[in-house]
């Protein structure tokens, strides 16, 4: 869908693409600041090196006080700063949930539209290989239920950069999820700044037999499965919403109109997941388009366990996706 830049076929890591987006925004607008625990060094990597160029006031280390610094951004944004917060790990949102869900998400609405709150909260999240229960959460479903937060979840380095630019330019609180395991994936990313509009999905692979809506780290899995199933004569379309709030239902429904079959793959626990939401919405609006029961692929409803075979049992696998596709085709 997005014209890839013609000026370069430079391939970089996803995490570098995020960083390029951040660097571009720090350069473009001096009111942009990046804060978080050890953002100077950056354990995950999205902010690494930025402090050298922009100094310790614009790339600022915080104490371990998530509730407070998440909330500080509300006041700061209200008076003119454009804060970007590195929350490091998805489950740390829990510590700051009130400031996110009751403050950042509600202040503009409660004020009758008096103020805009340009804030980005980004985090690495999801299972990364035996990080265990408290470091493997993907809380995007929770946050989707909180009105007032835009939510993005890119799946490629190209989207990661373009969505970071849009997230920082947006005048609302945006939560940006980097599925942990995608950080080390590579892809072609133009050097210049570009943006991908929030709320616009992308067909990552065209197909005719079944629509697989995949989110974040589920996208490469879905593409891999599609490749394999092609050989069996099954033509899989892979739709990446890229933004979860607002969700591009036009694109999803248009695809289902063509294929008549739906699988949704979410890198999150099943109950009340984005997968549930998408299946419910498509069923509600597009019931007559569906030739068979839509299927969800998501984690088992347990915390993510530590031991590798246990973790593997819980999270989504290629074979789960294959089974779901076979089920909707049956």
């Amino acid at each position, binding site marked *: 869908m997005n014209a890839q830049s013609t000026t370069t076929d430079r391939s970089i890591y996803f995490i570098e693409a995020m960083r390029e987006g951040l660097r571009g925004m720090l350069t473009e607008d001096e009111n942009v600041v990046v804060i978080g625990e050890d953002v100077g060094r950056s354990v995950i990597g999205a902010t690494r090196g930025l402090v050298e160029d922009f100094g310790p006031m614009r790339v600022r280390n915080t104490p371990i006080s998530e509730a*407070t610094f998440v909330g500080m951004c509300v*006041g700061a944004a209200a*008076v003119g700063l454009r804060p970007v917060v590195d929350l490091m790990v998805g489950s740390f949102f829990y510590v700051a949930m009130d400031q996110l869900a009751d403050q950042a998400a509600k202040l503009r609405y409660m*004020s009758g539209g008096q103020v805009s709150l340009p804030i980005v909260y980004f985090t690495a999240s999801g299972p990364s290989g035996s990080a265990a229960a408290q470091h493997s959460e993907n809380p995007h479903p929770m946050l989707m239920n909180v009105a007032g937060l835009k939510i993005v979840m890119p799946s490629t380095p190209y989207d990661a950069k373009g969505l970071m630019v849009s997230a920082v330019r947006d005048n609302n609180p945006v939560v940006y999820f980097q599925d942990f395991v995608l950080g080390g994936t590579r892809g072609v990313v133009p050097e210049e700044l570009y943006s991908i509009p929030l709320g616009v999905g992308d067909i990552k692979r065209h197909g005719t037999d079944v629509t697989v809506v995949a989110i974040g780290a589920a996208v490469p899995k879905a593409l891999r499965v599609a490749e394999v199933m092609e050989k069996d004569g099954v033509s899989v379309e892979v739709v990446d919403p890229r933004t979860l709030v607002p969700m591009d239902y036009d694109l999803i429904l248009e695809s289902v109109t063509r294929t008549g079959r739906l699988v949704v793959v979410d890198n999150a626990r099943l109950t009340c997941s984005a997968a549930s939401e998408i299946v419910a919405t498509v069923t509600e609006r597009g019931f007559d388009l569906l030739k068979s029961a839509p299927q969800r692929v998501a984690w088992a409803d347990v915390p993510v366990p530590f031991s590798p075979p246990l973790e593997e049992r819980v999270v989504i696998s290629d074979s789960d996706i294959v089974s779901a596709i076979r089920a909707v085709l049956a």
Partner: protein
Amino acid sequence: MATQKDLDHITKDDALDMLRRMIRIRRFEEKLSVLFKRGKLPGFVHLYTGEEAIAVGACSALRDDDRITSTHRGHGHLIAKGALVNRMMAELFGRVDGYCRGKGGSMHIVSFELGIIGTNGIVGGGIPIGTGSAWADSHLGRDNVTIVFFGDGASNQGVFFESMNIASVWKLPVIFVCENNGYTEWTPTAELTAGNIVDRSAPMGIPGEAVDGNDVVAMRLAVERAVSRARAGDGPTLIEARSYRWNGHNEGEEAFAGAYRPDAEQAEWRERDPIVAFGERLVSAGWMTRDEWDAVDAEELSSVDAAVEFAEQSPFPDADEALLHLFADDSEGVR
């Protein structure tokens, strides 16, 4: 107690304005109490009667472009910071001329123009927000300061300590004003709260000052000192203002709360009416006559009556406004 000498530090105009605002708050709140009993006010209502000196003293030490965050017991802060009673009343009635077009109500009235940047129903919720505006102001090289108002009960929320720590380390121009009215809802705060709240800033390297919250001049002078420090880049201050709320925790509490406050305690605090105390000082200083005082009172009373009329005549917002104002949409040019 502030002495005659303290009055030398404020101008007569300021003093008269402060008295007027205290009276405005009192009359506004008393009216609300009546309206609530008549079933005219939707939702929860927490009144500020008795605590007027805190908000007025504190906000009188601010410039118009300084900022505050407020609480569930917020009407006094808003009036002290310059909010109009008619637009406040319209908000409390859920009308379109309210500050938030009826979306906020009693616990969420804000006016960013007036520097009221958050009014919270979550106890302690505003503390990080005001710390954040102070951060932005200092980062952007402005000399504005922010006052964060919160209650004695809120002093047990973790964000209070977290915010003090970060404000200290980042030397932020924020003033933490704890309004200690002795109660956390219906429980004496001493049963829930270790030590003295004013001491809680000491380990953070933040000066703490206990002030008679019924003495508007003492309040103003304490906040002036804190403002000077903040504007000079010397960081935050904690002020614990001791006062008392005359009304219940919320209007309607008699339905279940019982007699949780000794009559003698209530009488004693009513004796120490901050408005009467200040008015009498102004009279004895020769800055005002009793008649002038009465005239101010009458004016404020009628402005509150007018506010009720204003509110009642303001229409409810169109129901579909419920779906607006969630997101700033650049294409609509909404700020």
